């Protein structure tokens, strides 16, 4: 397959798609190139439909894809509109000549740029003669779109515009692109004309503005194609490592999207494994073993079956001031994977403990979280919380239950009643303690974390989204018996 200009553009488009969170594998790329060469680049709609079949793998992705396609392959600029605009411009240029300006005045200061340039060929101002000779000027003045976009592309390559990485670099790259285009000649001309020929000056300024706009568009497009996705990824990955308590309200939207995406990923990784029915399969080893008692005659048959376990998760969250933010994200995460983990019960406590499962069932997660914070916020009392929890839910804990406790284990120097914790541990399948404090801080001051560790199956630090994702991942694989 040879690389045609079309396929280069296609590759750029695929990069663009990847930046917009549509995963396109190299194999997909090959398919896309093949599909495009079959369909041709002439019919835009056909190409769009065809590439959609290859590149967008779900209806969700297809929406993004269509937007991206329209943005990337902008319909060729309306020719008619272009020419009419040009006519307007030239008409405007001519109209002053046609009479209203007094003739004498016009002679004195009003030489139009065109006249000046023609005069310049005869040799008057070095800046002007240079300008007149430049192909850029000719293209600009003649309204030669093709030549203009060609020289912009060439300049963009020379200025390495496609290496743009951050939004903030746009100004810098625009300047570089303009320099490569030879805009300095225009600027020099403008300076030379500023005082002597106001009308020509205005025209030069207009041309400069036009050129600057084109350069800005080109850089903007380069940013969208080559960097927008990277920047988004960069922001996302940075956010995933920020301490959850430091997440500011304006980052919440991005945070929610990130959690949703992580949850989707986890859900699809764990959710697909459905219970497999193996009814009707003879368990040969077991049958043979049993047959030994009846002298090799398989009198009692044994059948294969997988015992169905109902995984259950109980999340106990400290919602006192110091850890409330973490509880919020843990709960948001847990409820985002409800497809895979349907039997989640949640409890919140600070001084007293109560079950909040119902709120999460009936309210949107966000709202439920604020409500939890409002009702149960306050000073922490672990002893009371464990006591309340034991009377509320201890009898429901069985060997399929995973208990997650989120808290900093700082109990204001009173006895946290770890014997109750030990009892919970004894009854459940797994007890996980998540502590938002860094590990080095455990056991300092009034932290009872060190004795707590002994009563947990897993005790781990959890203060950013990445760690949270890892925990939920682990939780899912264990709860679902893998």
């Amino acid at each position: 397959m040879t690389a045609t200009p079309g396929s280069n553009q296609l590759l750029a488009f695929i990069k663009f798609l990847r930046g917009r969170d549509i995963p396109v594998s190299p194999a997909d790329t090959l398919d896309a190139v093949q599909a495009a060469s079959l369909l041709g680049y002439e019919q835009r709609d056909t190409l769009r439909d065809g590439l959609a079949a290859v590149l967008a793998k779900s209806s969700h992705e297809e929406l993004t894809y269509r937007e991206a396609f329209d943005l990337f392959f902008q319909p060729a600029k309306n020719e008619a509109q272009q020419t009419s605009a040009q006519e307007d411009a030239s008409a405007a240029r001519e109209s002053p000549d046609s009479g209203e300006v007094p003739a004498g005045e016009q002679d004195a200061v009003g030489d139009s740029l065109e006249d000046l340039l023609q005069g310049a060929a005869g040799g008057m101002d070095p800046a002007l003669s240079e300008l007149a000779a430049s192909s850029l000027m000719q293209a600009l003045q003649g309204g030669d779109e093709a030549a203009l976009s060609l020289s912009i592309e060439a300049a963009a390559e020379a200025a390495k515009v496609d290496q743009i990485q951050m939004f903030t670099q746009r100004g810098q790259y625009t300047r570089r692109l303009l320099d490569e285009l030879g805009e300095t000649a225009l600027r020099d001309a403008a300076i030379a004309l500023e005082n002597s020929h106001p009308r020509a000056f205005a025209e030069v300024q207009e041309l400069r503005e036009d050129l600057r706009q084109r350069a800005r568009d080109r850089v903007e497009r380069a940013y969208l194609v080559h960097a927008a996705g990277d920047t988004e990824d960069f922001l996302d990955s940075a956010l995933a490592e920020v301490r959850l308590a430091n997440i500011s309200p304006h980052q919440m939207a991005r945070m929610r999207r990130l959690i949703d995406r992580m949850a989707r990923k986890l859900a699809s990784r764990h959710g697909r494994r459905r219970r497999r029915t193996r009814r009707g399969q003879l368990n040969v080893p077991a049958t043979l073993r049993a047959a030994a008692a009846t002298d090799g005659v398989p009198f009692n048959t044994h059948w294969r079956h997988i015992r169905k376990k109902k995984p259950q998760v109980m999340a106990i969250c400290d919602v006192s001031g110091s850890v409330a933010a973490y509880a919020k994200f843990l709960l948001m995460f847990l409820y985002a994977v409800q497809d895979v983990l349907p039997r989640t019960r949640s409890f919140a406590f600070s001084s007293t403990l109560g079950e909040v499962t119902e709120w999460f069932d009936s309210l949107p997660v966000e709202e439920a979280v604020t409500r939890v914070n409002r009702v149960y916020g306050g000073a922490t009392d672990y002893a009371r919380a464990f006591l309340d929890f034991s009377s509320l839910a201890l009898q429901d804990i069985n060997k399929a239950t995973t208990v997650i406790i989120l808290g900093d284990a700082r109990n204001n120097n009173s006895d946290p009643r770890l014997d109750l914790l030990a009892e919970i541990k004894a009854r459940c399948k797994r007890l996980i303690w998540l502590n938002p404090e860094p590990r080095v801080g455990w056991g300092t001051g009034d932290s009872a974390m060190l004795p707590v560790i002994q009563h947990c199956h897993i005790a781990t630090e959890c203060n950013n989204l990445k760690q949270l994702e890892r925990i939920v991942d682990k939780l899912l694989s264990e709860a679902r018996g893998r």
Partner: protein
Amino acid sequence: MDNPLYPQLGDIDAITTAFGAAGYICTPRIATVVYLAAALNKPILVEGPPGVGKTELAKTCAEVIAKPLVRLQCYEGLDEAKALYEWKYGKQLLYTQILKEQLGDILEGAQGLKQSIQRLHSTGDVFYAKEFLEPRPLLRAMEQNDGAVLLIDEIDKADFEFESLLLEVLSDYQVSIPEIGTVQARSKPMVFLTSNDTRDLSDALKRRCLHLHIPFPSIELEGRIVTARVPELQERLGDQLVRFVHAVRELDLKKAPAISETIDWARSLVLLHANELDARLVHDTLNVLLKYEEDIIEAEDQMGKLLKLADVL
């Protein structure tokens, strides 16, 4: 690069015309994807709400290219014994019986255990031979000599493990049978997979397919579909009916009526010799369109509005 097996699918416009003649109105989108699937030899994964003509697309395709349609209906618990192949246990059992009877002849004159076993080996192993193989839909589609249409219906209903089983079939058009080896497809079939989106399919499966999402059609398109399917329907009634259905889809329903229901309704109205839609007629026949009691009640409540949107009042 056109597929020589399916010359009917060598051109987008030809596909639209041929499918149209067979009573299936293609959007350009559908025609493009079918064309690409034939040219690139790739399966099509058709997604969309129930009743928009996903299965019908495969059937029509089989009709257009005049090849047999092999259909595999997926359900939970579907496994390779039902999808790929199975051994004919009965025949195998008979074979061992025969072998047992012939054993005396084969082993005649053999000295000691070692020689007997050697003799036995030399008879060749026919126990796992193709003669004992019972082909199931996937293998059957591979065994067609000059093309076929393989329809794997409602793949989302099958277990996740089954998807992995399909991967080999979909990407290389071959089946591995441990006892025999790899069986290559004699000719590459056109493969359609349909999914109702009840769960996400694996990326591996999606990657091997062309993706086609069929949404509910526009008023104009649905009008054409109904006319193609129920030609007896009068133009004015057809117009009202399609508008009415579109208005109904806007309601908050448990199950929105699909194209198949529109067509059923149109057929019912033709049977009732109706010339025009009116409140009584709609009231009497609404159960053809809506399948849940609460949906019917909801639609009855909004009848005035719906009829107005349908241009009846």
